């Protein structure tokens, strides 16, 4: 018998439908139905100015907007042959890593509630708010930031930011242990998560699964190390890996990643304190670079003969490996933009990690995938 889990179901954490074929209590087939949140971001981008696409990137993934902005910007800069200043690169890493912690805490809060533990949700949301406060102080927004620009970032940090950020990091660093006590110390958690949703490394590779799911299968793969973009080469951190490939292993990987992000952020804040400088490349055409320039006819007229190019970039987004392919044909808009969402690939392998388990196991397993429907549907 086929049953629908979704589009309105607590397990989905977004708008999608998991069709499940069951035999008694056992799952024998699944068929995810996506597209409920499709907004045509790739199509709309073809009709937008290069800097206007950034707005759409925030809507791509609503818990990791800055990571998606970074992905697009790297690709657009590649296509337009623009180089950002060093300080802008560090500011982008600052965004990325705070966003990673924010996204993982959001995942933690939602996932643990799915399993039946109520209080971690409250602690998680409390701590994530501190990160959103930081974002608000330098980007002006809590969810849709529009902070990165082709050629740099929009503005520098406000005075006193690094001190505040360090306080938040100290606070967060002390909380991760408490999270672990709440979860790993709970019998309910262990019984609902151990040996569930196993996806071995070879299956992960065959089905394109990346990110914490791949690393929880013991495979040490992280684009920040393997193909360092921005300034990750200069930063010291370890790749979080776990054995077991089950739900608990994915939990452990994400927890360790947050600790490593704190470690990266401390180095980034030190660097930012010592190295003032410009945050936007100079001599950019006005339509492209200027943070406050009105986007209008005057701006558009300047760039008719911009060199053509194709940009390709990939970043380690909190959910896994995201890629962007931007084709620049010399016009004011990208000719074609294509994004690869890590969650898209992770869900497409659903049959591999759901079949054979019980219906009641689906919420913890899908929770451990960390679904963000915004970036799957785009």
């Amino acid at each position: 018998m086929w049953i629908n889990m979704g589009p309105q179901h607590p397990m989905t954490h977004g708008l999608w439908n998991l069709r499940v074929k069951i035999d008694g209590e056992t799952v024998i087939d699944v068929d995810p139905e996506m597209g409920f949140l499709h907004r045509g971001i790739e199509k709309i981008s073809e009709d937008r100015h290069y800097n206007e696409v950034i707005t759409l990137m925030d809507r791509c993934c609503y818990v990791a907007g800055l990571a998606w902005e970074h992905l697009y910007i790297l690709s657009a800069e590649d296509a337009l042959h623009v180089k950002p200043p060093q300080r802008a690169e560090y500011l982008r890493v600052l965004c990325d890593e705070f966003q990673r912690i924010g996204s993982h805490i959001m995942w933690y809060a939602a996932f643990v509630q799915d399993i039946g533990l109520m209080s971690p949700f409250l602690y998680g949301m409390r701590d994530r708010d501190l990160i959103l406060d930081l974002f608000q102080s330098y980007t002006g927004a809590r969810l849709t930031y529009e902070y990165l620009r082709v050629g740099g970032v929009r503005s520098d940090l406000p005075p006193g930011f690094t001190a505040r950020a360090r306080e938040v990091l100290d606070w967060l660093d002390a909380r991760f242990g408490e999270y672990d006590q709440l979860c790993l110390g709970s019998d309910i958690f262990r019984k609902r998560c151990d040996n569930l949703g196993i996806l071995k490394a070879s299956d992960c590779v065959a089905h394109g699964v990346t990110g914490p799911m791949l690393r929880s299968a013991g495979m040490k793969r992280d684009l920040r190390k393997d193909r360092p973009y921005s300034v990750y080469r200069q930063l010291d951190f370890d790749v979080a890996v776990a054995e077991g490939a089950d739900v608990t292993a994915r939990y452990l990987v994400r927890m360790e990643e947050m600790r490593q992000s704190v470690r990266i952020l401390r180095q980034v804040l030190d660097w930012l304190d010592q190295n003032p400088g410009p945050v936007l490349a100079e001599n950019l055409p006005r339509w492209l670079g200027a943070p406050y320039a009105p986007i209008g006819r005057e701006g558009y007229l300047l760039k008719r003969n911009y060199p053509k190019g194709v940009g390709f970039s990939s970043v380690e987004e909190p959910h896994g490996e995201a890629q962007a392919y931007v084709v620049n044909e010399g016009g004011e808009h990208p000719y074609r933009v294509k994004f690869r969402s890590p969650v898209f690939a992770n869900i497409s392998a659903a049959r591999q990690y759901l079949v054979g388990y019980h219906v009641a196991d689906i919420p913890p397993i899908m929770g451990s995938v960390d679904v963000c429907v915004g970036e799957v549907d785009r």
Partner: protein
Amino acid sequence: MQPEELQARISPKLGENLLGVEPFAGTAGRVRFRPAGALELFETVRDDLGFRHLSMVGAIDWVDHREVFYVVWSDDARQYALLSTDLAADAPHVESASGIWPSANWHEREAWEFVGVTFDHHPDLRHLLMPEGYAFHPLLRSFKLHEPEELEVKSRRV
């Protein structure tokens, strides 16, 4: 891995179906091939060259032809490579890669529904993000953003 090495290792297998390998931004190279050699190329790239991970399949409408590109990753070389092929604009089709890399399944469904490229021998070529029966391919250049698609809505009132 450099474009020259890719060329040297692929060309004995593919022969004239290999059109060339060019440098491409921060990757091992961009392999351009004829659609007739698709399956052979996929197998060579995965088994002989170690690109076991297919990250993305995308399609571009160039109006006079369509392009399908594949992004693959090798864990040994820690590098990406791009494979790309040009298809005729009328009835564009290429062999499905999902027999070689299962991860191609959804990406090809998406490329089919948005750019109208058919993937031969695909196990499950149906709509993914758009509703069943959706008759347009929105990422074609001929699909204009500012001209709303014409849908005939009949009033229920008589």
